[in-house]
């Protein structure tokens, strides 16, 4: 191929490609998967979240976000900002500490790892001696205190991680001074908590697992007070005035200890088991915050009665007489409170709780403690995402109406602004308004403002109201019966339990000009919705479409179709359904499109496709694509699920078996690794090489459906047409006849079969596209009418582009004569999984741009293929090949960006365009030095040093 191209042209093209295409992964939207640690810097007003996969993410004001990834693939267990600094320290599961900083570079901040450190004990010491269990970033910003499993406290100078050996606090030092009356003095266990005295930075309290707490003076290097707690310790909190110490315990109790110069007597203790009488679970963290006037806030997590509410994930907030147990839907990772005032020491204003599946912020200043809606870290997966659809450049009118409908849904949120405001967002305003629509398992469609760095929820549509479902509508109400104890209050929106899997949304198509939306689901239901600013009560009429068309000998073994409510249903303002099509058999809808100008909806399932006129509420066309020898298509999804489950179970068993045998061989070192190849031979992975045949299963499944106004019959008259592509490599084309506009409501729309193309390679057709005489893709319906696109060239000859999983093929119209093609699979073995059409603007000249196909393959690579020449332009690795759900979830925008799920709860945003790029650009400035910074002078006497040395050695001899 190359030899025909002249060199000059080639290099020019190469240069142009660089101006058009550029690959960047720009930002991650949504909520981090498996968060494991939370940190907050009051001075920077930044929030940090560490995850089990070793990522660290920082968030400030909306649009300010940073992300880092540890090289080690270990979970982040703790995150601590250094007070008054731009550094933070992370502790990983593998016992390594990492120092990160926000470095400003050309006006923008970046998160960089600047150091790592692992505690090294004396030679021969057991690993538990240096296993870090508690970290205290000292307020001086220069010291890090590391409590370990062995009970020692190591002191390290930061940010350089220099060990200050002479100042370490060894267990023996502490144990020697423990009062004799304290039971089991020798075994204090690990360091559970380290806290600094808020009024005297030289004092820290060391809490040991067994319950003993020791106040240690860092200057004098000695214990000044012992607090003889006897219950297993969970956390320690030193009140702001330094007068009290709160400790929470394993048995669900907490104690308040009065601090004084002498050792504490039993009388000074105030102990309480808040949900007492019966055995309680541990209180894992306790915080008390004073207010300027009035009682303090007491916040603690856990402590629930073990038998009755042991499975709840609760944080209790007590303020004066108000007592609420916030009941979360997933496990609590950590929480902190944000305080007002210039020094962040004023009244607590908000409680920030990180639970496993979402971040919840509670406004503590407004009556009733409402939740503040988060501008980022939104749980995309509050019900599992089943599909997504992106709409670029939303007209302002529609945008405002959608937002208005959304605002009416979020009245229960607090009016307070988002309390985390660190950093400056320097990113330019987004060039256009984009919406990302996600369909969910529970039948909802969520609308997200995807214009900028923050994926902000703007509206939520529920389709479940149209149908009768098993769920009791009162089931999810707050069961806030009076006088209930503990006083639970449900918070958070993560609710993974779907009432009825048939409600799941599978395909979405929104017309941004007309405000018509169509949503199709798992049980073959297709809803057509219209945007209405007022609430309306209406009946949705269902039209059943029999896609089998008399094909006999089949039995549908899948789920039944959904029951439609026959009585009028009240729909809130927003998108309201007015028409419903139910496919029979009720198989999942696999293709869907809407033409708002023609007022037609086309849909396909594994059995065929249909065309529905939503103005007349009438079926126009039903076509069965089923292959009579395809039994699998008739069985429905349920039996398939069963077999997947079975195969999963088998593969897990195989893994377990091989693990067991590996372990066996590791134990007995006599037979090293002979068994491993043996194992592999038992179940070799085999792949059958066979040409596709028409008898393969699911050949009739409709993969794509498309409307085009083009030349189907002859080259002088363009007509509306409908195109459908199947899994078996077949394309059906129908000519549509629409009555004149004034008689549109009365005369029937008709469809006539015009062409049938059977691709010889029989690969599934995943995309169909018609190019106009200039080789540009046909505009969307109504786009020309709104003066937003050039009208297509109807003079030159049109081209049909058929994208199968294996090839891109261009045909001339109306004869469907093959012109060019690009064989993807035959060249490199990758197959098309997702395809979209995008326009790429040149980064150098404002007015140059070209359209291309954006393709994601099953190998996880993204390709740009030129139109109409179908030549490969660029390709980049994007998604991991093994990440099947990531590849399946990918959606492209019309401007060369894309989204895919990197976890059930996070979208990664990427850009292929050199011009269109949405990425965080933000600056965080170091806080101005506050006067409280103090340097500690340490001059330990020589004998103390020796003692430390001795005790350390003694520890492991």
């Amino acid at each position: 191929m190359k030899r025909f191209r002249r060199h000059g042209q080639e290099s020019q093209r190469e240069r142009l490609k660089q101006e058009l295409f550029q690959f960047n992964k720009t930002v991650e939207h949504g909520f981090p998967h498996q968060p494991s640690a939370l940190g907050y810097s009051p001075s920077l007003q930044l929030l940090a979240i560490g995850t089990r996969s070793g990522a660290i993410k920082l968030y400030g004001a909306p649009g300010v976000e940073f992300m880092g990834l540890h090289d080690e693939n270990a979970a982040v267990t703790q995150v601590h900002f250094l007070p008054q600094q731009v550094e933070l320290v992370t502790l990983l599961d593998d016992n390594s500490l990492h120092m990160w900083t926000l470095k400003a570079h050309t006006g923008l901040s970046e998160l960089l790892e600047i150091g790592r450190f692992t505690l090294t004990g004396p030679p021969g010491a057991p690993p538990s001696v240096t296993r870090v269990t508690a970290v205290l970033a000292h307020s001086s910003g220069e010291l890090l205190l590391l409590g370990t499993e062995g009970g020692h406290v190591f002191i390290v100078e930061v940010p350089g991680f220099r060990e200050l050996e002479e100042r370490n606090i060894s267990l023996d030092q502490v144990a020697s001074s423990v009062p004799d009356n304290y039971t089991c003095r020798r075994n204090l266990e690990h360091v559970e908590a380290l806290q600094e005295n808020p009024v005297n930075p030289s004092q820290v309290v060391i809490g040991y697992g067994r319950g003993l707490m020791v106040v240690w003076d860092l200057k004098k290097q000695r214990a000044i007070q012992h607090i003889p707690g006897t219950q297993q310790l969970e956390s320690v909190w030193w009140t702001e005035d330094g007068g009290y110490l709160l400790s929470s315990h394993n048995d669900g109790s907490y104690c308040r200890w009065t601090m004084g110069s002498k050792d504490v007597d039993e009388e000074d203790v105030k102990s309480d088991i808040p949900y007492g009488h019966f055995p309680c679970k541990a209180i894992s963290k306790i915080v008390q915050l004073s207010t300027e006037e009035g009682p303090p806030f007491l916040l603690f997590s856990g402590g629930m009665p073990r038998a009755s509410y042991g499975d709840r994930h609760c944080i209790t907030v007590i303020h004066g007489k108000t007592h609420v147990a916030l009941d979360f839907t997933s496990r609590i990772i950590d929480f902190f409170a944000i305080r007002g005032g210039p020094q962040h020491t004023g009244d607590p204003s908000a409680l920030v709780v990180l639970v496993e599946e979402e971040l919840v912020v509670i406004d503590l200043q407004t009556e009733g403690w409402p939740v503040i809606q988060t501008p980022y870290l939104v749980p995309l997966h509050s019900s599992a995402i089943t599909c997504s659809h992106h709409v670029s450049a939303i007209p302002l009118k529609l945008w405002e109406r959608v937002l208005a409908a959304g605002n009416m849904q979020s009245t229960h949120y607090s009016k307070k602004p988002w309390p985390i405001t660190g950093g400056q967002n320097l990113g330019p305003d987004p060039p256009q308004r984009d919406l990302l629509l996600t369909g969910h398992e529970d039948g909802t469609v969520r609308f997200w403002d995807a214009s900028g760095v923050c994926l902000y929820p703007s509206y939520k549509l529920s389709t479940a109201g149209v149908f009768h479902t098993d769920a009791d509508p009162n089931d999810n109400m707050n069961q806030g019966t009076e006088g209930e104890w503990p006083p639970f209050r449900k918070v958070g929106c993560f609710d993974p339990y779907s009432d009825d899997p048939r409600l799941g949304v599978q395909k979405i198509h929104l017309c941004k000009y007309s405000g018509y939306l169509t949503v199709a689901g798992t049980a073959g239901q297709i809803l057509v919705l219209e945007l209405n600013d007022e609430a309306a009560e209406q009946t949705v009429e269902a039209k059943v479409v029999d896609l089998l068309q008399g094909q006999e000998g089949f039995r549908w073994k899948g789920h039944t179709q959904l029951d439609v409510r026959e009585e009028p249903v009240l729909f809130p303002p927003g998108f309201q359904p007015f028409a419903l099509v139910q496919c029979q058999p009720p198989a999942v809808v696999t293709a869907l499109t809407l033409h708002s100008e023609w007022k037609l909806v086309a849909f396909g399932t594994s059995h065929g496709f249909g065309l529905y006129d939503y103005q007349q509420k009438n079926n126009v066309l039903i076509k069965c694509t089923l292959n009579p020898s395809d039994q699998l298509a008739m069985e429905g999804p349920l039996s398939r699920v069963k077999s997947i489950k079975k195969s999963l179970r088998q593969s897990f068993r195989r893994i377990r078996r091989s693990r067991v045998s590996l372990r066996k061989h590791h134990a007995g070192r006599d037979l090293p690794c002979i068994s491993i190849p043996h194992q592999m031979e038992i179940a070799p992975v085999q792949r059958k090489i066979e040409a596709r045949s028409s008898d393969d299963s699911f050949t009739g499944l409709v993969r794509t459906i498309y409307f085009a106004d083009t030349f189907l019959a002859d080259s002088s008259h363009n007509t509306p047409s409908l195109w459908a592509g199947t899994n078996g490599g077949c394309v059906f084309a129908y000519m549509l006849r629409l009555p004149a506009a004034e008689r549109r409501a009365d005369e029937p729309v008709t469809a006539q079969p015009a062409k049938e193309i059977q691709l010889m390679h029989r690969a599934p057709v995943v995309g169909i596209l018609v190019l106009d005489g200039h080789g540009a893709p046909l505009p969307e319906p109504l786009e020309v009418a709104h003066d937003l696109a050039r009208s297509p060239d109807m003079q030159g000859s049109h081209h049909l582009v058929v994208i199968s999983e294996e090839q891109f093929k261009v045909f001339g119209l109306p004869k469907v004569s093959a012109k060019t093609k690009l064989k993807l699979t035959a060249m490199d073995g990758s197959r098309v999984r997702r395809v979209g059409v995008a326009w790429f603007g040149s980064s150098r000249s404002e007015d140059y741009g070209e359209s291309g196909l954006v393709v994601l393959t099953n190998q996880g690579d993204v390709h740009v293929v030129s139109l109409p020449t179908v030549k490969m332009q660029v390709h980049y690795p994007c998604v991991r090949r093994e990440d099947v759900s990531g590849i399946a979830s990918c959606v492209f925008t019309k401007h060369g960006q894309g989204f895919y799920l990197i976890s059930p709860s996070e979208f990664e945003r990427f850009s292929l365009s050199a011009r269109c790029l949405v990425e965080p650009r933000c600056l965080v400035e170091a806080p101005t030095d506050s006067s409280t910074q103090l340097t500690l002078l340490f001059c330990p006497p020589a004998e103390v040093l020796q003692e430390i040395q001795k005790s350390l050695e003694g520890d492991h001899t």
Partner: protein
Amino acid sequence: MNKTHRVPSNRSLSTVEVKSKFGAEFRRFSLERSKPGRFDEFYGLLQHVHHIPNVELLVGYADVHGDLLPINNDDNYHKAISTASPLLRLFLQRKEEADYTFGTNSLTRKKNTVLSAVLLRPDATRKKPPVIISLPRDFRPVSSIIDVDILPETHRRVRLYKHGQEKPLGFYIRDGSSVRVTPQGLEKVPGIFISRMVPGGLAESTGLLAVNDEVLEVNGIEVVGKSLDQVTDMMIANSHNLIITVKPANQRNNVVRGGGGGGGGGTASGSSGRSSDSGASYYGYSSHGGVGAAAPAPSHIIQNFPVGELESEEEDDEDLVIEVGGEAESAGRDPADYGMPSLPRYEPHLNLRTPSALSVNGAALASGSSGPPSNANSTTPSPDRAAEMRSLEEDGTVITL
């Protein structure tokens, strides 16, 4: 081709009855089974009994399976005699006007071969090889070893001709590891291997591929660094014309370069390297609808294709386009583009196709496959409309391409 293993043992008649057909004439005579003599004697005998002393003949016979096989040397002559049961049916033809081909089922497909002979023998005047063995073009190739001259002797490039026939390709591949010699010494690298053959499949029947052969290339593209799934997809994407380069597990049957490759057995049965521009697929696709209107797929097969350049020149599979529905009449008006209703026309294709700029050099069949057109009209918006469609339906399918 050589069905040497099918020797009927129970035939003990001493003479063989011969029925020889030349044009419309038949001759019957008998031969001694035990002493058939040499081929040139037999050839002379045939010329004699048909009274065509100076006509150059192609001699073919119908074997026990009904396949038309050539007789042109002593070996296949003896073979023909020994397997005759009891009648030996001969078919003679003038060499210059030979209009049928040898191969499986060729007798039953005579109608099509007329076409193929007309269309697909642009090289009929080619120089005859000095040794009289049957011409490669007289066979429908099932597989071949190609590029023997440019490949290392330890490798074998095998081409499997699927041609849309029903026989499955029939093999499986797996992951494995192979040992390579590198400057650093032996190195273990991941590789792709043939793991299983489906009995009766194309791959097995060729005898050119075997279990544990390492797959090195698929249609000229190296598989190094590709996953099993990728290689699988590449092979399936190329399944209509699959060329795989393997390193046979059994290195004893390698083609010896320059030697007389006809060492019997399956190994060299096809054609090696230079000599085999047989290429033409004499069978069309038997269409899935079962109607089986077959058409030739002229193709020029590249030998010694440079790696990577395969794609643009490769023999093409052509898609099937069916015009359905209401515009049948208007379509019929344009004789250059449309064939007569329900009858495939072949001649125009070549003319239509040749100017097309890129890669489309094949033509394909079109067939009135039974299902789609009738199904396609399944919409019935109104009764009169439906009636109208039914009448159109009866016009039959108009086929383009």
